[in-house]
């Protein structure tokens, strides 16, 4: 590395040389085969149920071609740009997104409709649009982000942006199922928490990498806990207060849980000190208790979780219907399109496309499909954490880990909620749930991960003199010892 070590402000100019990504090619071919088979299976079932002749055609050839085309285009762009970034993430996300497309094609198209340029679009068409946009975001971020300076330098600006978004949601947000979730500006409406989670990770990565030595070094004792001095604990309390604030003001339990869990995990990664986690968990329990006592929403969610059958046709309805869906699926599932029995034309689970796609897939793909989807998320987590572990410095490591965690923890929260393992909170299942905000925000996450994994990316700036210089960061696998 010679010319690349740029003087701040100078730009690295290098000739673009295409580079084959054979592993990605192979995996994408596999993804293509799986999605074509899935679509053919769905098409056959749909035609049979509609009383038509069963053919070998996919359910919706046009949509499938567009989607696979977008994946191929993203792949070619990465090849032409000569990126040496991770080759597993794109195919994995591609498969999750493809499963989402098949699920949306399978659900009644009238669940969501939108008119654009005089044409009316249904659920799957809109989701396909968002998926293609998300793939574009991934590709652009993966290729265009060559420096992380804009992320690491302005951490307080990012924090401010996040807080502004949060306040906006509070001030002009629309209520969805009793929670302030979306804001509408002109024709566009979105869920700010999806963007805030990315901003939060950027801020935390900057903050924790700067103050890591202080957080690790100094300490005071509080009973059995060894804690840093009070000033360094302030962010912890601020974060806790913010999470509680989200619960109190927005009544968005899922986002609060996600933010706090990611925060705790990042603090633990940065400091390797269990005392923070213990303190965080104590705060979590105290906060949960307060919230349970004060807010009907929280009490309802917990009571439903403890025993949904008390009010089976009322409050417990969604969760019970979700469990019924898993039960109907059994081990091998009903097959795409053959589950989710309609009663009087209604789907068995309300909000199935946003909050319960995991239950829908649990029914139609069975336990086998559930385990496979969980496996795909674990692949994303493994790749993300691997990128974090081999990052060039603390900021990138924490950023990569944090981005990975928002996807992984969010997937856990909603999947576990669908299965009544934890109280149900309305967050999206990343890359599968219907919704533009979620897809785009998660697209940013994956794009940044790809960029961070690129060995050709601009190296981090030299550590500032005020900070202790760390010896060579480990080069490889997670858990590689101290």
């Amino acid at each position, binding site marked *: 590395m010679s010319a690349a070590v740029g003087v701040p402000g100078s730009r690295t100019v290098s000739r673009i040389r295409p580079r084959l990504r054979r592993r990605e090619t192979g995996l994408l071919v596999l993804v293509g085969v799986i999605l074509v088979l899935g679509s053919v299976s769905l098409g056959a079932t749909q035609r049979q149920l509609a009383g038509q002749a069963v053919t070998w055609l996919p359910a919706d050839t046009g949509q499938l071609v567009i989607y696979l085309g977008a994946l191929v285009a993203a792949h070619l762009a990465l090849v032409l740009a000569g990126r040496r970034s991770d080759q597993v993430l794109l195919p994995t996300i591609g498969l999750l997104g493809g499963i989402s497309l098949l699920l949306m094609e399978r659900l009644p198209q009238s669940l969501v409709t939108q008119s654009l340029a005089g044409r009316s679009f249904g659920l799957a068409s809109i989701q396909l649009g968002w998926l293609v946009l998300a793939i574009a975001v991934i590709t652009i971020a993966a290729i265009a982000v060559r420096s992380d300076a804009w992320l690491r330098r302005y951490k307080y600006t990012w924090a401010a942006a996040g807080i502004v978004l949060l306040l906006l949601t509070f001030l002009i947000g629309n209520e969805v199922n009793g929670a302030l979730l979306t804001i509408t500006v002109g024709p566009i409406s979105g869920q700010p928490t999806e963007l805030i989670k990315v901003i939060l990770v950027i801020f935390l990565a900057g903050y924790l990498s700067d103050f890591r030595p202080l957080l690790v*070094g100094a300490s005071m004792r509080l009973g059995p806990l060894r804690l840093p001095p009070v000033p360094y604990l302030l962010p912890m309390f601020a974060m806790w207060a913010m999470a509680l604030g989200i619960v109190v003001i927005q009544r968005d339990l899922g986002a609060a849980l996600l933010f706090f869990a990611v925060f705790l995990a990042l603090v633990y990664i940065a400091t390797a000190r269990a005392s923070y986690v213990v303190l965080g968990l104590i705060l979590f329990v105290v906060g949960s208790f307060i919230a349970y006592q004060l807010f009907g929403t929280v009490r309802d969610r917990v009571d439903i979780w403890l025993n949904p059958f008390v009010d089976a046709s009322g409050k417990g309805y969604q969760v019970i219907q979700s469990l*019924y869906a898993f039960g109907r699926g059994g081990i091998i599932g009903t097959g795409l399109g053959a589950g989710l*029995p309609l009663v009087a034309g209604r789907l068995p689970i309300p909000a199935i496309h946003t909050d319960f796609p995991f239950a829908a897939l649990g029914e139609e793909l069975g336990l086998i499909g559930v385990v496979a989807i*969980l496996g795909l998320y674990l692949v994303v*987590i493994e790749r993300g954490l691997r990128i974090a572990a081999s990052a060039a410095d603390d900021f990138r490591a924490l950023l990569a880990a944090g981005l990975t965690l928002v996807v992984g*923890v969010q997937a856990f929260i909603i999947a576990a909620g669908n299965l009544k393992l934890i109280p149900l909170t309305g967050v999206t299942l990343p890359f599968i749930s219907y919704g533009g905000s979620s897809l785009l925000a998660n697209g940013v996450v994956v794009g940044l991960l790809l960029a961070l994994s690129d060995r050709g990316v601009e190296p981090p700036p030299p550590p500032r003199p005020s900070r202790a210089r760390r010896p060579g960061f480990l080069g490889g696998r*997670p858990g590689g010892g101290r």
Partner: protein
Amino acid sequence: MNARDRAPLGQGIARVGLILSLLFGLIAVGAGYWQVIRASELTRAPDNPIVIAAARDVVRGKILDRTGATLATSKRDANGEPYRVYADRSLAPLIGYASPVYGTAGLERAYNAELSGQGSPNSLDDLLSKLAPGATQGESLTLSLSLKLQEAAVKALGSDRGAVVMLDPRTGRVLAMASTPTFNANAIADPTTAVAAFTRTAAVAGQPFLDRATMGEYVPGSIFKIVTSAAALGSGAISPSTTYPQQPAAETAGLLVSGFRIHDGHHDFSGSLALDYDQAIEVSCNIYFALTGLRTGGAALAASAARFGFGKPIPFDLPTAVSQVTNGGGSFGGGFKDDVELANAAYGQAETLVTPLQMALVASAVANGGVLMRPELVTSISGQTGNVSIGPETLGSAMSPGVAGTIGHAMELAVESSWGRIFTTGAAIPGIDTAGKTGTAQIGGSAEPNSWFIGYAPANNPQVAIAVVVEQGGHGSARAAPIAGSLMGLWLKTLNP
């Protein structure tokens, strides 16, 4: 500078990765719990959309009578939605209904899984049905019931409330099981009229939805003397020649048991004769059986009743109410409170409550040499995968063949002897020896007593056993005995000669 801040972040990242992996493993375990361990229970829940949807889409199997006549079948309306059609309203309390609005009742409910094609516990079938979605065809039921006999039974009960149960005593198979008033199940099964019909039927004072044959609980009166006989003769407390010296004198003033007087109504005919067992049955002597009950003891009486099926639901195709000899909890043996309760129970009053099905089983056991057969209605279930025949099945011995012979002889006299013709008018079938016992069950106040008859025919080769109850029908010989005689005659002479 602490050494720990020099430690690479890799360790923390690896630990967080491990925790996340464990959490995802937990999700997989949770999914396995609901999708494998709890799956069949969840999928059979009545509010599971698949159950509701299946009930709407499925073409329910037919229900046929013993001759193959259709009792219930499914048709499709203009929209292609299946709905249920029933042959006759005499079947309604028994077969019930399958309504898109009100779900199922009666036999339709009891055999819902089979009729709607979800009865197969075979997991391979489940897998195959998942691979081949589409409307299912339910399995068909063949009943031992005779539609013509059923119609005749309801017609015989007329506008009275009551029940008729007719069994083949050799197999326990139900030939007729009527309950009145009946209702129009077709109107409840028809989606366009269901709500109005259901509301109207539920408001009828006579409770048409109640299947009196299996769920009606009645004071038995003198028909219970057959159970007391089995207990007394079986335990050796009495023999056929047993007489009670104090009995004739007690006839006019009543028998005093601990301050309670037990009365009789037959002394105009029997005078001052000390009755033996046969004569006591012939004239239905309350005092004889009160004394016999006291001599037998509560424990022996309750134990004998239990062998007939008292004290627990009868194993049958439909849910059954439990018949009892006493409310229980008493300290006098067998759960009786005291000697007064026992003496009254011995001739079928006190706290004794019975279902018509239970009393048909009592008559049936006497007819079948003491052997109690499981009553059964559904004799075969046939579907795409084949035909399954059911029963007959022996429940056990209610009494020895000798005791059954003694009781049967007395019941034959009760219908055929000169005294019997007075007390059991109308039960005799011309040309066929008949055995039976009437009951006139006092239900308190000034209300007319319930009219009972149990019996069987032909006496020497029993092919049909019967229990008839007519609510507030007066004396046993007034309503129940003639109904029984005509129905048994119809069965033996015309329908199944």
